[in-house]
């Protein structure tokens, strides 16, 4: 068929789709459909379906229509387009970096607008949620989303490689110095070609402009917190990540990156860990099902080593927001509230591997029993106690994250001085903040 003769066909097809779309809106009104966009990793989708099944059984007449959207750039691009074209979902996963744009466009509800009515979420419910999670759910002190699940970073170790190197896997590294020493001991160059065949520790350095740039910065926050630092002051007037704590954290990364010769190693750390070429790496609970599936892999999750200031890990979450374009805000809010119930949180965590968002879940007897049999999940849940979230960046957060990423890349891969690159990066970020203040 020629190109021209295909066109009428395409036009007809488009018309049919449009017509079908129009028809859906006039569907019978006895069934409320709540659209829900999420980016749950594929291994957790069966758990999500089970969860939704349970909700629909408890709430006849409501249908939750879950739709997967790839996380990160794709999600925010799709949300923007949807808001513009009046086809926003009722509920969507949100990343705290997106809040500024969504709030400024008045696209989502404030949570306090929704917290009305008798059976609603109470202040004490909110108090039960881990504070670092709520910190990232807010913009300029106002809550715009609620966490659906939590994540924390832990130290993933290959026990077999520990034993081979004469290390006791039940005694993982507890300080930065130990982490460095262990990493060196676990790095082996068997054939002497100057390139490691087994890597002791993976310092997560990725292209700052690539899809993993934000993930690199996120993992770096663990070390920033352990050294007693933070990203920005709470008044939002200047960044703090370049101060002594930031320099200490970046110097550790740089030293390890260089002495392990990581720039000759793959950045596909998951494949490297699975193929036993990597002894230790930072990782999150969403990967537990993946490691469980690999036969013969003797692995464990240890708490992160303590830094010069304290023990800490970075706690994040996936957040739900309710869109103003929703035609059923009451029903949608009902679902969001239901997700926060301790027994639902317990079920969701047990099935998906994500961490619960509130303390009360650990009092659910079934969940306590489950943790005893799942030491990896327990290690992550225990990490929540030392969990911290970066102070939210209310303005230009996407660009400030990029500035941090560039500093990390320059110090490690670019072999530059940590303090110099951090100062440069902070100057750029502060200039952005000053421009906002001037407006």
């Amino acid at each position: 068929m020629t190109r021209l003769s295909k066109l009428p066909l395409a036009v007809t097809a488009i018309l049919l789709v449009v017509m079908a779309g129009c028809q859906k809106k006039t569907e019978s009104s006895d069934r409320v459909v709540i659209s829900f966009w999420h980016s749950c990793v594929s291994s957790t989708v069966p758990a999500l379906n089970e969860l939704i099944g349970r909700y629909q059984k408890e709430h006849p007449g409501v249908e939750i229509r879950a739709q997967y959207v790839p996380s990160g750039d794709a999600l925010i691009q799709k949300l923007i387009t949807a808001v513009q074209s009046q086809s926003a979902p009722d509920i969507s996963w949100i990343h705290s970096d997106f809040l500024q744009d969504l709030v400024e466009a008045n696209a989502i509800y404030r949570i306090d607008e929704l917290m009305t009515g008798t059976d609603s979420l109470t202040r004490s419910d909110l108090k039960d949620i881990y504070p670092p999670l709520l910190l990232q759910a807010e913009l300029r002190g106002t809550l715009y989303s609620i966490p659906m699940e939590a994540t924390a970073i832990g130290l993933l170790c290959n026990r077999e490689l520990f034993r081979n190197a004469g290390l006791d896997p039940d005694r993982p590294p507890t300080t930065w110095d130990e982490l460095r020493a262990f990493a060196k001991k676990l790095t082996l160059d068997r054939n002497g070609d100057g390139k490691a065949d087994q890597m002791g520790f993976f310092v997560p350095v990725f292209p700052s402009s690539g899809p993993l740039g934000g993930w690199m910065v996120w993992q770096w926050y663990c070390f920033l917190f352990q050294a007693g630092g933070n990203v920005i002051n709470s008044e939002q007037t200047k960044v703090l990540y370049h101060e002594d704590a930031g320099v200490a954290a970046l110097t550790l990364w740089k030293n390890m990156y260089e002495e392990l010769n990581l720039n000759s190693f793959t950045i596909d750390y998951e494949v490297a860990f699975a193929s036993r070429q990597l002894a230790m790496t930072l990782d999150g609970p969403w990967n537990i099902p993946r490691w469980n599936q690999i036969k013969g892999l003797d692995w464990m999750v240890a708490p992160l080593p303590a830094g010069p200031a304290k023990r800490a890990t970075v706690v994040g979450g996936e957040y739900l927001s309710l869109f103003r374009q929703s035609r059923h805000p009451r029903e949608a809010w009902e679902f969001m509230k239901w997700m926060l119930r301790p027994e639902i949180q317990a079920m969701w965590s047990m099935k998906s591997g994500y961490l619960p968002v509130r303390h009360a879940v650990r009092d659910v007897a079934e969940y306590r029993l489950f943790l005893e049999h799942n030491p990896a999940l327990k290690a992550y849940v225990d990490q929540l106690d030392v969990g911290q979230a970066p102070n939210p960046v209310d303005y230009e957060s996407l660009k400030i994250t990029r500035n941090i990423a560039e500093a990390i890349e320059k110090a490690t891969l670019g072999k530059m001085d940590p303090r110099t690159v951090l100062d440069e990066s902070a100057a750029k970020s502060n200039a952005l903040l000053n421009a906002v203040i001037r407006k």
Partner: protein
Amino acid sequence: MTSDTRRRKGKREGLSAILFLSPTLLVFMVFVLFPVVFSFYLSFHTWNMFSSQRSFVGLENYERILRTPEFWDVLRNTVIYTLGTIPLNMIVALVLAYLLNKKIVGKKILRTAFFAPVIMSSVAAAVIWRWVYEPNFGLLNYCLSWFGVPAVNWLNDPTAAMFALIMMGVWKTFGVNMVLFSAGLQGIPEHYYEAAEIDGAGRWRKFWHITLPLLSPTTFFILVMSVIGSFQVFDTVYVLTSGGPLGRTKVLVFYLYENAFKFFEMGYASAVAYVLFAIIFGLTLLQVRYLKKSVHYTS
């Protein structure tokens, strides 16, 4: 036929032509013409795609481009990519076209094989190349190790990454140029060669004095199109290196994409698009003015 009826017939034909063209015209206007005009308008504004207000800022976006050091880095990377890809691309394409113009066995299969990368989805191809370049498990390092070459972290090494990108760029596009060169070669009349042979010209002289000059219209066309194509490279960069390491492979269109769809600065990104247009337009004019003279036509 009177002039009146002819005119009426012409009008009717014009109408039906428009009717038949209307789907294409509609698609063209909605997806090409409108964005082109709209982004020109946007380049004088700031807009984040979300908000309903677009504030007019005059030439500020263009000024900002000129004083952003990153823009100049990105432009330099694009020039390096262009200078790296085009000569290599044209030489490979010409040599293969020349060889395939001879009577050799399996000519059709070879031609298909060389053309295959062109029709392959560039994202899928880049994913394959990512594994070829993989430092620990990759095919390229494995093959190099046979010759004792130490492993290179192709995509994560600030100097090697651009080279890796250029190699893939050449692999992906030389097929088109090869076909164009083949067509050009077949268009050269046989009698020139016969005459040269009578004069006692050897293979090299024939190539240098007949093939190359008479191929120059094709070469010129390929050069102009390749410069345009190289300045617009995006998809392979996006999948292969995402502009890393240390921003060494960040090219103009990637920079534009980032500003538009990561930082939502549509005004600034539109200005970058128009600067890119100006650069390509200028380069093309230069080529037409200075190279056109050395183009020979057979008749």
